[in-house]
């Protein structure tokens, strides 16, 4: 009975971690609501210095969502009775009386805006270290052209982690877009840096069919050398370093690689609720940077691919929800990376439980 494991109903959330809440461009002078690890949060930018603010999206008075209210300068005014909060979540105004109760405050969340992404810390704010936010520098680098978006999925976030750590599914689910036979046929190498919480999965195809995604964007006509090097910075950031070149063309001995096309595919996997995950995706390229046709093509085709994943994972979750408790599954070689990611997530979740008594209630 090799490879068979019994599964839990849902992937545990890892608290005391940074999660991507939004692209920086999504947050402005309108209140934006996102639920992250079951915590409803209201995001906005201050009028005074453009800083991103994150407050619990529930008024302390009657729990009305603050996102249904409005901004007044740098403060948020509840749309129900006018309770008003400053950027730290302290209530500075209540209606009809001068005294504001000392307990009138909503939790605020640590934020880091970096590489065009807005990261929020879920857990004990005292433990938030901005230096531990993983990087995706190409997203904000003018030498790269990036397209991206976000698609919500009605599934356990662990299903999306599984999906992205095992790219052999490209051959079947994304055939005709990014999948070719060689993806599923080529052995992988998996590394886990336990201390860093990083899983790496590499698949190097020496002589592969060029899928439309790369044929039309690079102009390569013929077979290719295709490298896929995944770095998963658990729990949220997934990087796929993709290298495409005509078959046989390798990096030069000095390490430079001017004859290849490089695409950085970035995902942020942000658990929303037990059965809902935000799938942030971006495709950055170091070629044809100013070619609008290529930009539109890569955006539209990658969104199509993401929506194929969305449909598949929505369907899979529905199927899993009909399974009996303690259902089993079978893993084979292609799952080596996904299994490693699951274990890291379980460890991070356990560590978060030990040190995170703080929850988003006033």
């Amino acid at each position, binding site marked *: 009975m090799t490879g068979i494991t019994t599964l839990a109903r849902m992937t545990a959330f890892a608290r005391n971690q940074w999660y991507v809440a939004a692209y920086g461009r999504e947050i402005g002078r309108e209140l934006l609501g996102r639920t992250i690890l079951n915590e409803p949060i209201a995001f906005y930018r201050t009028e005074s210095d453009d800083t991103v603010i994150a407050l619990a999206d529930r008024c302390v008075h009657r729990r009305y969502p603050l996102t249904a209210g409005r901004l007044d300068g740098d403060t948020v005014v509840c749309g129900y009775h006018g309770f008003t909060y400053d950027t730290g979540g302290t209530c500075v105004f209540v209606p009809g009386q001068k005294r504001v109760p000392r307990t009138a405050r909503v939790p605020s969340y640590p934020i880091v805006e970096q590489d065009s992404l807005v990261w929020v810390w879920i857990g004990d704010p005292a433990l938030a270290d901005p230096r531990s936010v993983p990087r995706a520098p190409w997203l904000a680098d003018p030498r790269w052209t990036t397209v991206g978006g976000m698609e919500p999925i009605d599934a356990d976030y662990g299903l999306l982690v599984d999906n992205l750590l095992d790219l052999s599914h490209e051959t079947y689910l994304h055939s005709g877009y990014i999948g070719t036979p060689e993806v599923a046929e080529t052995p992988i190498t*998996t590394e886990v840096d336990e201390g860093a919480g990083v899983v790496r999965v590499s698949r190097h195809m020496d002589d592969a069919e060029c899928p439309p995604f790369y044929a039309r964007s690079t102009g390569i006509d013929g077979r290719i050398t295709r490298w896929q090097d995944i770095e998963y910075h658990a729990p949220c950031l997934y990087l796929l370093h993709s290298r495409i070149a005509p078959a046989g063309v390798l990096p030069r001995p000095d390490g430079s690689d001017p004859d290849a096309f490089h695409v950085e595919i970035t995902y942020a996997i942000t658990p929303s609720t037990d059965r809902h995950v935000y799938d942030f995706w971006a495709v950055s390229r170091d070629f044809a940077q100013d070619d609008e046709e290529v930009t539109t093509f890569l955006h539209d085709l990658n969104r199509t691919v993401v929506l194929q994943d969305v449909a598949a994972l929505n369907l899979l979750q529905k199927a899993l929800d009909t399974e009996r408790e303690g259902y089993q599954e079978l893993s084979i*070689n292609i799952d080596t990376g996904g299994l490693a990611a699951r274990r890291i997530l379980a460890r991070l979740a356990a560590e978060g439980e030990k040190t995170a008594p703080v929850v988003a209630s006033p």
Partner: protein
Amino acid sequence: MSGAPTAEVYRIDWLPGTDVLHGVCHCGAERTAEDPVELWQWMLAHPTGHQPTGHQPADHREEMT
């Protein structure tokens, strides 16, 4: 949370042309198997069952049952 690289690295290579997985623990212990679940269980049980013998010749490797 993403930390700086550490020395605690576990590696599994799927040997080309075979169904065999080859695992190397950060302590140097090695093992081959055809089941990733069992290989990870062995790997992550470190140091239990790990002999820090460095590279073992293929004909001496420890096969899993």
